[in-house]
Structure formats: structure tokens, C-alpha cells
């Protein structure tokens, strides 16, 4: 159990050492770093027998016990299969990345990011506690941002990274809100416990809110239409990233979330309508847009969008077979899509282009890569005896039925699958077969580091199909059971079985082959259609961001006028309203106090204060006014001392002195006019506001003095200040001991404001250069 605890941190620790190892061993560091995910993979295989037997493993340590938040993990069929995919494919990807990025000056950083992402993804699927789940979810968004923007000197990369972060980040917030809603409805904050709450969630009046918020998280992460646009743009990332994050793992996090929630949120009309609808649309849009592309990676990216749509559609369809199909397809997709991306990377790396129209006849030069590509494409096309075939058969078993909705969904699935086959073959066959085309680089086979990954994945897709019994026993059946919430047993195999599903498969294949031959024509049609529409969510995103920035700027201009007088007026009017409002609302007007009986010298001090204030008002220039205000301050300090508050008096003296000094310095610094320039109207207005605030404060203070004094705190500090804190000066003891943390925060604030003031003073408006546009001049000042 404790081993899993360390497993959750292992990739992050490896990430720490990656740059150092790369400096020492160059690209061969990949061999060392890949050991970490490989060990994790073997660690998780150890759970297989227990999970296959229907078991569930939980464990963890207390994190914040007072909030009932734990650092806990939960392993069942769903999370185990995901963990194995993440660590298994992760091992191959690290090796691949080592070869692909060989000689890149920032390879260490790249491998470090990849390992961090792996840690985040692993944590995401294994998390039991909601908060952990959310934290890892956001970590995948952040690491994905770093990876997409890896080529940060390219503007397109930066835009794609920002776009992915904004979309998935917003989804993450939606997820957090959703989890909190679920937490409130069910009262549990752990997934393992949530799965045991039965119908609580479904019957709650807040089901809709939870449903929409969770969907917000899942649909952004899994790139469902119309939020799919960030995924193709993310292809700006180096190919290992696309192969790992944007096909096999991260984008499946949304599907993972839906599958996780299926036992407690599924089986409602809402669930079974919205999911298939959005999934189906995404499937069709994704495949049709894929046909349009000529870049190998973009073609694959759009089919990934389509596959995610298919998975969402199946998860929401509601039959057990559909879930089995979804599970099989998810595993198959991770294998063949990861492989095909790496193949695309190899072609790009060795031939120098990814444009499918400029490639051809590479088979002789790159036989191993071609082999891997062919196997993967056959699996993607759903041909026997590959895992993809099992998936497709099971999908048709799951959704084909006589009613209208099922027939509609089936039709969608057939068209989608046929187009998937088209793209699979276009990526795997077109660059390798036919006449040799002149490529920017003289192509030759990729090195071992780079063909190992795709080959292993492609072969696994074949082995899984052939040994379907063991495959189902250890992977697909436990996973499907976890998704359905009831034990399921998958039995599909490659042995021919006549029936509806096989017929539909044949239709799909026939349709696919037909469309493959007509691909050039289809591509032209799609291009014309898209041109006719002219607008897409991708452009919409830019418009959204632009209007956001413009709106923020307009709002700032409106409320931040830059005039100090306006700010001060607003602050004091607000103070006035809230003080009087409070007194009025509570109806606690003070009684008029009796005339105070003071000593003569106390009267004298008060007189000094009044004289000080009077001279502030009549002062001819500002400096005199500031100093006169100081007189009043000193008078009050004197009163504090006479009334028995030496600490307060002491501080008041110092604060008065320093504020007079600093105010005077500010005045000279800002080169203010010595005279006040306010108009009579403004003088009256300001005078009224200050009189109002003064009256309100006086009333409040009188009211406070007139209420009965609660001596609890005084007694407490009197009694304990010396016995506990060894100090007789209660004020100081409170500051440095009883409320020490408060003071700590306050001095931090003092220091930060000191820094801010320093920065403000140091901003010297340089002489504006009239030749430069305004914005550049401002930048200089900042």
C-alpha cells in the first residue's frame, strides 16, 4: 500500500533529475528516465489479479483531518487500466521523446515536463479524494500548457498553449464547482464512497447543476464540439506530446470523469440524451474535418476528437454492451492512436515533411515504421484480428436496435467509423505506398528509440485481439464493470460470429474503402464547405478573448480615472453611507452624553487640538496645513497619555511625526502648487463630506462607550499575560505572542507596501519621445 504512495510522487521526482541527467548523458538519459514509468507499470500489474477477481483497493494517509480531506487513492478496474496505459505508454513515449528530441538544447526541460505530466495524469486516475482529483486535473492542464507552448519562440505555439489553458482551465473550475455540489448533496468527498451512494445524486433536486458542471469539466478536457478547437491547435507541440497527451491520455481524462460518474449519475434521461447527442455531433464533425486536412498530425488530431465523441456517445448510451464497446474502444484507441502519432513523427523527422500530399513510397526506406503504421491502421479501421475489431463489434452489439434513436446513433457510428478507417489508411498507407516522391530530407529508417514505441503499441493491438480471453479477463471486463457499476463479462473474440454486428462491420468497411478512393474529391468538397461557412469556434475563441481584453480595458478606464480627488471622495462617501446606514439599520443612536468634567490642563490640550484644526482650515498654503494637522495629532496623543494609555500615546506621537515628515516630502516630490486650488463649490462639498464622516464616527464612538463593557478579554489577558507569556505589558504580549500570527501577517503587509511605494516612487516619467507611438513610451515607463 505504501508503495503506491511513493508511486504517486515518483514521476515528479524523476522530473526533478531529468535536466541533470540529460546534461550528463545527452539523449541516452531517456533510457534511465524510462525506468521510472516502467517500474510504475510493473507495480500496477501487481494489482491485476486482485482487480480481475472483482476487488477494489483503497489506501491513503490523512492530509487535513480537520476538514476530512485525505491523500487517498482508489484502484478499481477503471483506474487500474488507465494507470497501466499511462505508465506503459509513458515508458515508450519517454524513450521516443529521447530519440525525437535528440540534440535539442532544451531536451532536459522537455523530458522533465513530460514526466511531470505523467505524474499528474497518474494522480488524476488514482485519486480517491475529490480535492486531490481536482488538483491533479488542473496539474494536467498546466503541464499540458507547458508542453504545447514548448516551442515558445513560435507565436502559433504560444497561442495554442494559451487556448488550451483557457479552455481546459475554465473546465477545471467547472469541475471543482461540480465536485463541491456533489460533496454537498451526498456528504462524501471520496470517489470510492461516492460509488456506494446509489440513487442519492440522481434523485437530488440539484442533479441538473451537478450534471452541467461535471459536463463542463469533461467536455472541455475531452474536446467535445463546440469546444474541440483547442485540440487540433495543440498539435503545435512536439510530436511526443501529441502522441501521449493528445491521443492516449490527457484528452481521455474527460471520458474518464464521465465513466467514473456513470454509476451514480448515469441512467437518467438527461444523461442518455445529452451525452450521445454531443458525442455523436463531435464524432461526425471530427471525422469530416479530419478528411479536410493534409497534415498527418492534424488528420490524426481530428480523428482523436471524433474518437472522444464516440466514447462520450457510448458512455451515455445506457446499455451494458455500449459501455463494453466504449471500454474496448478506449483501450484500442490509446494503442493505435499513440502508435500512429509516433509514426507521423517518424515520417516528419526522417522525411522532413508531414504534408500527406508531398509524401509517398517511403516503404522501402522505412520498413519497420511502415509495419507499425499498417498494424495500427488495421486496428483503427476495425479489421480482424485486432483489438479495434473487437471494439467495433461490441459497439454495434451495444447500440443497434430497432427503435429510431438507436438507428440514428448507429448510422452516426457507421459513418464515423468508416471515416476513421479512411483517415487511418490515409495516414498509414499514403506516405509509404505508391511512387517515390522527392522529400525535403533523404528518408531512412528511424533509430531504435523511435521505432520501438510505435512497434510495441501496434503489436499489442494485435496480441490483445488474438488473446481476447486474457485481455478481457484482466483489462476490459473489470474496467467495464467499474464503469457500469455492476459486474460485466465481455466475451467478444475474433472468431467469426455471424449476425447484425458483423453485417454492420462489413458495411462500415465497404463504406470506408469506397471513401478512401474518393478522398481527394471529399477533401475538396469539405474545403469548399468550410470556406462557405467562414466562421468556426477557433475564430470565435479569438473574438471572445479580444472582447474580454477590450471589455476589461474599458471597465478599468471607467472606474480607474486616475484622479486622486475622485478616489478619496468615493472612499469617504462610502464610509459615510455605511456608518450612518449601520446606525440606522441597527437603530442604535447614542444618548447625548452629559457634559464631561475634566481638569483644566485637559481642557487646555483640547483647546490646542481645536486651534490646530482651525489653522488647517485657514492655512494659506499646504505645508502649513499639514503641520497644523500634526498639532491636532500631538494633542490627541497627549490626551491618550493623560488618560492612561502610554503605549497608544507613544505610537501616536511617532506616527504623527512620521506622517508629517512623509506628507511634506511627498508634496515637494510631486511639485504640488503651494496653494490649494479648489473652487468654492468643491470646498463646500468636501467640507460637508468630512463633517458628515466626523459626525458619524463620533456617534459610533459615543455609542460604543455607552454600551456595557464586556471584561472577558481584559480579564483573560490580565490573568494570563504574565503567567503564560512572561510579559507585563499586555499590549505587547498580545502583539508578539497571543496574536503573533496576526502581527506576522501585518509586518508582511508593511513590507510589501514598502516595496510597492518604492516602486511607485521609482517610476520616473521619462521624457516622451514624440517619434514613438504612445504605447511604446508607456512601456518604457513601466
Amino acid at each position: 500500500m505504501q508503495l503506491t504512495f511513493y508511486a504517486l510522487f515518483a514521476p515528479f521526482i524523476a522530473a526533478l533529475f531529468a535536466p541533470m541527467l540529460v546534461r550528463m548523458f545527452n539523449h541516452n538519459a531517456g533510457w534511465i528516465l524510462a525506468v521510472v514509468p516502467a517500474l510504475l507499470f510493473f507495480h500496477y500489474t501487481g494489482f491485476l489479479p486482485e482487480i480481475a477477481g472483482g476487488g477494489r483497493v483503497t489506501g491513503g494517509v490523512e492530509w487535513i483531518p480537520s476538514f476530512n480531506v485525505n491523500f487517498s487513492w482508489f484502484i478499481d478496474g477503471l483506474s487500474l487500466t488507465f494507470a497501466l496505459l499511462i505508465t506503459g505508454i509513458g515508458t515508450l513515449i519517454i524513450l521516443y521523446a529521447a530519440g525525437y528530441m535528440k540534440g535539442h538544447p532544451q531536451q532536459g526541460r522537455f523530458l522533465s515536463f513530460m514526466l511531470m505530466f505523467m505524474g499528474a495524469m497518474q494522480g488524476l486516475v488514482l485519486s480517491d479524494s475529490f480535492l486531490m482529483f481536482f488538483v491533479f486535473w488542473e496539474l494536467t492542464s498546466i503541464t499540458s500548457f507547458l508542453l504545447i507552448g514548448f516551442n515558445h519562440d513560435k507565436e502559433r505555439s504560444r497561442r495554442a498553449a494559451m487556448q488550451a489553458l483557457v479552455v481546459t482551465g475554465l473546465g477545471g473550475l467547472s469541475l471543482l464547482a461540480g465536485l463541491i455540489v456533489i460533496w454537498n448533496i451526498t456528504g462524501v468527498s471520496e470517489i470510492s464512497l461516492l460509488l456506494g451512494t446509489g440513487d442519492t445524486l440522481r434523485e437530488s433536486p440539484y442533479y441538473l447543476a451537478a450534471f452541467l458542471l461535471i459536463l463542463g469539466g469533461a467536455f472541455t478536457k475531452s474536446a467535445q464540439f463546440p469546444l474541440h478547437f483547442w485540440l487540433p491547435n495543440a498539435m503545435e507541440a512536439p510530436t511526443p506530446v501529441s502522441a501521449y497527451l493528445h491521443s492516449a491520455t490527457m484528452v481521455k481524462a474527460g471520458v474518464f470523469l464521465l465513466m467514473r460518474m456513470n454509476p451514480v449519475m448515469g441512467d437518467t434521461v438527461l444523461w442518455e440524451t445529452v451525452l450521445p447527442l454531443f458525442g455523436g455531433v463531435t464524432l461526425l464533425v471530427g471525422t469530416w474535418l479530419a478528411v479536410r486536412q493534409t497534415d498527418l498530425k492534424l488528420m490524426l488530431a481530428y480523428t482523436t476528437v471524433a474518437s472522444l465523441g464516440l466514447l462520450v456517445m457510448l458512455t451515455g448510451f445506457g446499455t451494458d454492451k455500449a459501455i463494453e464497446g466504449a471500454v474496448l474502444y478506449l483501450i484500442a484507441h490509446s494503442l493505435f492512436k499513440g502508435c500512429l502519432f509516433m509514426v507521423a513523427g517518424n515520417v516528419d523527422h526522417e522525411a522532413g515533411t508531414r504534408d500527406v500530399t508531398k509524401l509517398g513510397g517511403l516503404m522501402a526506406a522505412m520498413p519497420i515504421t511502415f509495419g507499425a503504421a499498417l498494424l495500427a491502421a488495421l486496428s483503427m479501421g476495425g479489421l480482424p484480428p485486432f483489438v479495434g475489431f473487437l471494439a467495433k463489434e461490441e459497439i454495434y452489439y451495444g447500440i443497434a436496435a430497432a427503435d429510431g434513436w438507436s438507428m440514428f446513433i448507429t448510422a452516426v457510428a457507421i459513418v464515423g467509423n468508416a471515416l476513421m478507417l479512411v483517415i487511418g489508411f490515409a495516414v498509414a498507407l499514403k506516405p509509404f505506398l505508391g511512387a517515390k516522391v522527392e522529400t525535403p530530407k533523404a528518408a531512412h529508417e528511424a533509430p531504435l528509440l523511435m521505432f520501438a514505441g510505435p512497434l510495441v503499441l501496434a503489436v499489442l493491438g494485435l496480441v490483445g485481439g488474438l488473446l481476447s480471453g486474457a485481455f478481457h479477463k484482466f483489462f476490459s471486463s473489470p474496467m467495464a464493470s467499474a464503469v457500469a457499476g455492476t459486474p460485466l463479462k465481455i466475451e467478444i473474440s475474433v472468431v467469426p460470429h455471424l449476425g447484425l454486428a458483423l453485417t454492420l462491420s462489413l458495411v462500415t468497411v465497404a463504406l470506408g474503402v469506397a471513401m478512401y478512393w474518393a478522398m481527394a474529391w471529399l477533401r475538396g468538397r469539405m474545403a469548399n464547405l468550410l470556406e462557405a461557412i467562414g466562421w468556426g469556434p477557433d475564430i470565435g475563441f479569438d473574438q471572445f478573448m479580444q472582447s474580454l481584453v477590450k471589455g476589461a480595458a474599458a471597465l478599468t478606464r471607467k472606474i480607474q480615472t486616475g484622479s486622486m480627488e475622485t478616489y478619496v471622495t468615493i472612499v469617504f462617501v462610502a464610509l459615510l453611507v455605511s456608518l450612518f446606514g449601520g446606525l440606522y439599520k441597527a437603530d442604535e443612536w447614542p444618548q447625548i452624553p452629559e457634559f464631561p468634567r475634566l481638569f483644566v490642563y485637559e481642557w487646555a490640550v483640547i483647546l490646542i487640538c481645536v486651534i490646530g484644526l482651525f489653522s488647517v482650515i485657514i492655512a494659506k498654503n499646504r505645508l502649513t496645513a499639514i503641520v497644523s494637522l500634526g498639532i491636532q495629532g500631538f494633542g490627541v496623543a497627549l490626551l491618550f497619555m493623560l488618560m492612561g494609555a502610554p503605549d497608544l500615546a507613544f505610537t501616536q506621537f511617532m506616527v504623527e511625526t512620521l506622517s508629517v515628515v512623509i506628507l511634506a516630502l511627498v508634496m515637494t516630490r510631486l511639485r504640488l502648487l503651494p496653494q490649494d486650488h479648489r473652487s468654492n463649490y468643491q470646498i463646500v462639498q468636501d467640507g460637508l463630506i468630512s463633517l458628515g464622516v466626523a459626525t458619524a464616527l463620533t456617534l459610533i464612538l459615543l455609542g460604543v462607550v455607552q454600551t456595557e463593557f464586556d471584561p472577558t478579554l481584559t480579564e483573560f489577558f490580565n490573568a494570563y499575560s504574565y503567567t503564560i507569556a512572561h510579559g507585563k505589558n499586555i499590549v505587547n504580549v498580545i502583539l508578539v505572542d497571543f496574536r503573533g500570527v496576526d502581527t506576522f501577517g501585518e509586518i508582511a503587509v508593511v513590507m510589501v507596501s514598502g516595496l510597492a511605494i518604492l516602486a511607485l516612487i521609482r517610476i520616473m516619467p521619462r521624457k516622451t519621445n514624440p517619434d514613438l507611438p504612445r504605447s511604446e513610451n508607456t512601456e518604457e515607463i513601466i
Partner: protein
Amino acid sequence: MRTLIFRTVAPYFTSLMLIYSVFVLLRGHNEPGGGFIGGLIAASALAIYGIACGVSPVRRAIRFHPMAIAGFGLFMAAIAGIISLFVNVPFLTGLWIYPEIFGVELKLSTTLVFDIGVYLVVLGSITSTALALEERERD
């Protein structure tokens, strides 16, 4: 403000005030005083010195950038709190020792360290502001 008398008196005045500020800081636990007020006194001492003799003598005299002094103060306050964690009591719990030096019992505590931290933060932040304002045109 560069009158001869002021300029002659200011250094003595400043040193007296600085000594007094330390005195106020140290007596704070039992008598009126403490880190905050001590820091204010020290800051005004330096402000006076600056007004009388100009900014660069002050900067030379205190050797470090005032913000660095403030930063060190915040660091000290944090350390005072963290020491408590090592003896398994909550953050910022006061710890006391009573060593005897030359036959006099001294009461030393982490709260004293904390208070010195407060003193330095207040001194540094305000001095930094005052000095920056006193400085005429830069460059």
C-alpha cells in the same frame, strides 16, 4: 533645511534616538514599548538624519538597502515562529530560556526574536519610503 545648527546636531540626535529605540524595543515586554514603536523611533531618527545631511550619508551609514533590512526582519520573525515547530509546539509559540551571564539572569525568548523582526520591518519599510522621497532627481 540645511542649516548649520541642524546639520551639526542631527548626527548626535540620530544616534541618541537610535539607542533609545533599541531601549524601547527591549523593554517592550514589561513596560510601554516594543518592536513597532521602536521601529518608528528608529525610522524617524534616520529620516531626520536624511533631512539634515542628505540621503547618501544615510545610505552609507546603514550599509544595507532599507528594504533588505525589512526583508531580514520578516525572515527573523518567520524563523522565530519556525523554531517552535522543532519542539513540536504550534507555529509561533513563545519559547523561553534563562541563561546567566556574569551573574545576571537574562530572559531570552523567541518572542524577543519576533519583536526584533517587527522592529526591523518597520524601520526598513518606512526608511525606504522616506529616503526614496528625500532623494531628488535620480539619474
